[in-house]
């Protein structure tokens, strides 16, 4: 969790949300570009979990904090796929906006995980 990866992930998630906002405003439906962007975030989250699992031995986290920390990261792994599943079932502005919410929640989750890690 040390290093630039968590911050990069937060920035990427917020950027993803911003791109989705443009899609919503223009009333464009999600395309492969958006899916690819989400896939990159997904892979980065997976790498982050592995990095955290490796570094966790050196971190001073209590039991509950440890559960909370990995809880956040696992949530970060399922959030975007669930968002896409719910979003792609319908073609409407509201359905596209689901991805906006998923992107914001993804950024929030990584920020929360970082806060637990540093506590």
């Amino acid at each position, binding site marked *: 969790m040390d290093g630039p990866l968590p911050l990069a992930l937060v920035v990427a998630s917020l950027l993803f949300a911003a791109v989705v906002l443009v899609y919503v405003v223009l009333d464009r439906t999600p395309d492969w570009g958006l899916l690819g962007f989400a896939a990159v975030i997904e892979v980065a989250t997976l790498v982050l979990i592995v990095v955290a699992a490796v570094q966790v031995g050196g971190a001073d986290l209590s*039991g*509950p904090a440890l*559960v*909370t920390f990995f*809880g956040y990261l696992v*949530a970060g792994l399922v*959030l975007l796929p*669930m*968002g896409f599943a*719910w*979003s792609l079932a*319908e073609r*409407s*502005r*509201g*359905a596209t*906006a*689901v991805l*906006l*919410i*998923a992107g914001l*929640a993804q950024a929030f989750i990584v920020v929360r995980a970082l806060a637990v890690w540093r506590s």
Partner: protein
Amino acid sequence: MSRAATSSSTSSGLGRALVAVYGVFALAATARSLVQLLTKADEAPLAYALSAVAALVYVAATLGLAEVGPDPRRLAWAAVVFELVGVLTVGTLTVLDPELFPDATVWSAYGAGYGWLPLVLPFAGIAWLWHTRARD
């Protein structure tokens, strides 16, 4: 020939985004509640019991608005009204007496810790259910 009053879908269009917000809250509240109950249930039983209730309400609202189950509209109404009463009651109690709950819940101080979303959500939910209600 009179046509039966039909309600429009609560999980379509704008409702889809609303369900997503409720879903995030359901996920977050359930996970948080499980961690609290499994790792430190004896520290603040009342606050953690309340967290569990809030989690159930968000799950019920999500399922209801997503039109899962036999009578989703009734489920959604019950959940969002309970949610509104809950956030107003707990919010008022925690503002009057901050010592009442040793550990914060999602509804403490009207959900200020969660960007006031817990206070806004029930109003959005009720407005949406009203907007999509059955009309002749």
